[in-house]
C-alpha cells in the first residue's frame, strides 16, 4: 500500500493525476469556503451581472441569470463526486459478491448469477437509465439508482473472471486440501486477489460515472435545476455558442479535469498493481 503510493507520486503522469483529483476533492469539500459566491449554488438572480465574460469579479464569467460560474462549478463537483461515491459504494459490493460466488462455486450458482448480469449488460446503459428516469421522477436520487443498476454487472463480470482464474491457483487447492471453509476460501483467499482489479476499475469509473451523470443531466434527466451540475451547464450553454463561450467551455473543462485525473491514477494503478502479481 505504502509502496504503491510512493510509486504513484514518483511518476510525473500519475502525480499529475493525484494532484488533479486532490484539487477536485478539495474544491468540492471546502466549496463553502472557496466559492466566491456560495449562495449562487441555488436559485439566485442577479441581472446586473448576467451573461458576463470572465473578469476579475467572476473568474469564469456568469450565467444567464447572473450567477458566478466558478462557484457553480465548485458546487457541481460536490454533486458529481457524491454521485460517483454513492454509485460505487452500492454497486461495487453487489457486483463483487455476485462475481466472487459465481467464479468460485461454478455450476448452477455461476449459471444463474452470470446470466442475470448478462441480461443487465445487454441493455445499453444510457437507454436503461433513460427508461428508468422515464418511469420514475427525474431526481438526483433516481439518477443515482439508475446509474447503479447499470454499473454493478461490470463488477460482477470483472470479479467473476478474476475469481475463476484464481480458483485454479495452487493456493486455493492448498486451502481445500487443508479443509478450510468455503467462506474462508472466498473471502480470505480469493477476494484479496480480486481487489487490485476492483480498485483500479473503481478509480477509472469515478471518471465514467461523472460523465454518465453529466450525460443524463445534459439530456435533462439527471440533476434538476437550480442544483448546479456540469452536464446541464454544458447543455444550457451550448445554445449560446460561440458568443457566450464561457458557459460551455468552463464546465466542459471541469468535467475533463476530473475525468482525466481519475483516469491517470487508474492507469497507473493498473500497471503498478498488475506488475505486483
Amino acid at each position, binding site marked *: 500500500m505504502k509502496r504503491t503510493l510512493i510509486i504513484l507520486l514518483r511518476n510525473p503522469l500519475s502525480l499529475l493525476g493525484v494532484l488533479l483529483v486532490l484539487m477536485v476533492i478539495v474544491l468540492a469539500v471546502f466549496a463553502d469556503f472557496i466559492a466566491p459566491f456560495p449562495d449562487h449554488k441555488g436559485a439566485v438572480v442577479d441581472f446586473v451581472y448576467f451573461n458576463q465574460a470572465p473578469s476579475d469579479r467572476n473568474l469564469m464569467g456568469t450565467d444567464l441569470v447572473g450567477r458566478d460560474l466558478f462557484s457553480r462549478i465548485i458546487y457541481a463537483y460536490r454533486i458529481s463526486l457524491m454521485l460517483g461515491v454513492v454509485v460505487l459504494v452500492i454497486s461495487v459490493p453487489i457486483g463483487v459478491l455476485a462475481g466472487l460466488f459465481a467464479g468460485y462455486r461454478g455450476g448452477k450458482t455461476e449459471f444463474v448469477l452470470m446470466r442475470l448480469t448478462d441480461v443487465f449488460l445487454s441493455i445499453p446503459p444510457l437507454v436503461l437509465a433513460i427508461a428508468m428516469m422515464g418511469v420514475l421522477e427525474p431526481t438526483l436520487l433516481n439518477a443515482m439508482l439508475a446509474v447503479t443498476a447499470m454499473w454493478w454487472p461490470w463488477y460482477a463480470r470483472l470479479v467473476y473472471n478474476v475469481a475463476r482464474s484464481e480458483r485454479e*491457483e*495452487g*493456493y486455493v*487447492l*492448498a*486451502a*481445500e*486440501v*487443508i*479443509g*478450510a471453509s468455503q467462506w*474462508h476460501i472466498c473471502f*480470505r*483467499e480469493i477476494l*484479496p*486477489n480480486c*481487489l487490485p482489479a476492483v480498485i483500479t476499475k473503481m478509480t477509472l469509473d469515478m471518471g465514467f460515472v461523472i460523465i454518465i451523470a453529466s450525460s443524463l443531466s445534459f439530456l435533462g434527466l439527471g440533476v434538476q435545476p437550480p442544483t448546479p451540475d456540469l452536464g446541464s451547464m454544458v447543455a444550457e450553454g451550448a445554445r449560446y455558442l460561440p458568443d457566450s463561450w464561457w458557459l460551455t467551455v468552463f464546465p466542459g473543462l471541469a468535467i475533463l479535469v476530473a475525468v482525466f485525473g481519475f483516469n491517470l491514477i487508474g492507469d497507473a494503478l493498473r500497471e503498478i498493481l498488475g506488475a*505486483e*502479481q
Partner: protein
Amino acid sequence: MTALLSTRNLHKTFGKKRSLVHAVNNVSLDVQAGECLAIVGESGSGKTTLANMLLGVYPQTSGEITLDGQQLPARRTLVHRRAIQLVQQNPLSSLNPRRSVGASVRLGLDVYGIGKPSERWRITEAALEEVGLPAAFRKRSPSALSGGQRQRVAIARALACQSRVVVLDEPTSALDVLVQARVLRLLDRLRRDKGLTYVFITHDLSVVRNIADRVAVFNAGVMVECSDTRRLFEAPQHSYTRSLIAAVPVVTEAEMQLRNTLAEESSK
C-alpha cells in the same frame, strides 16, 4: 506389518461413455510408515490423479484407500485431512500472493485447532525455523521471497499440521538446480528427523534415484513396476522403465555407461 497408507484396486475415470478416460487403472500399492515412495511417470500417467485421490480432492470411482488400516470415506473429516498434507509443484502459485507467509502457514493450525490461539504464531514461527527460514519471515509477502524460500514455506505449511504423510507433487521441478539440491536435502533431513512418510511424485528419475526408498513407475494410468530404488535403476524389469531411464539427460561418464547398458538391454 500393515502399511500406513494403502490403496486397493483404485480406479478413477473421467468423462462419460464414449470419451471415457481411465486416469488411474486398478492401482494397489502400500506406503510404509517412514519411507519415501516415489511415483514416477510422464504426463498423462495418472500420477497427479492418484495424488488428488490420496488427498481427497476428489473421490475415487472405485477401490479403496486406507490409512492405518482404516478406510477413508469419500467425504474426509478434518482428522483425515490433517493426516495427509500436500506440497505442490509451483511455489509461486501455491502461496497466496496477497496473504503473508505466516497466514498461509497458520491456516492449518486454525482449521484443525492445533494449539491455543495465542500459541499459534509461535508454532508457525517454529515451523518456519525448522525449514531453515528466519521466524521474522512470517510477516513477509511471498513476493519478497525467492523460489526456494517459497517452497520452504510450502513445506513448513505441511509440517505445521504435524501430519504423518506428505504428498510431494513435483516439489522441485519448478526450481533451479542449485535450489533444488538444497530443498531435496531439507526434505530428506525432515523425513529422518520427524519420521515423516513421503509420497514423492515426479517425472525426474535422477531425483528419484537419490531420495526415494522405493519407486512405482506409472504409464497411462497403470502401475507397470514397483521395486526398491536401487534395484529399479540397476535391473529394471519393465521395458517402459528402461526407456525412461535411457532418456534421462546425464552429466557424467558413469551415468552414460549405465544408460548405454540399459539401452542395449532394451534393444535386445
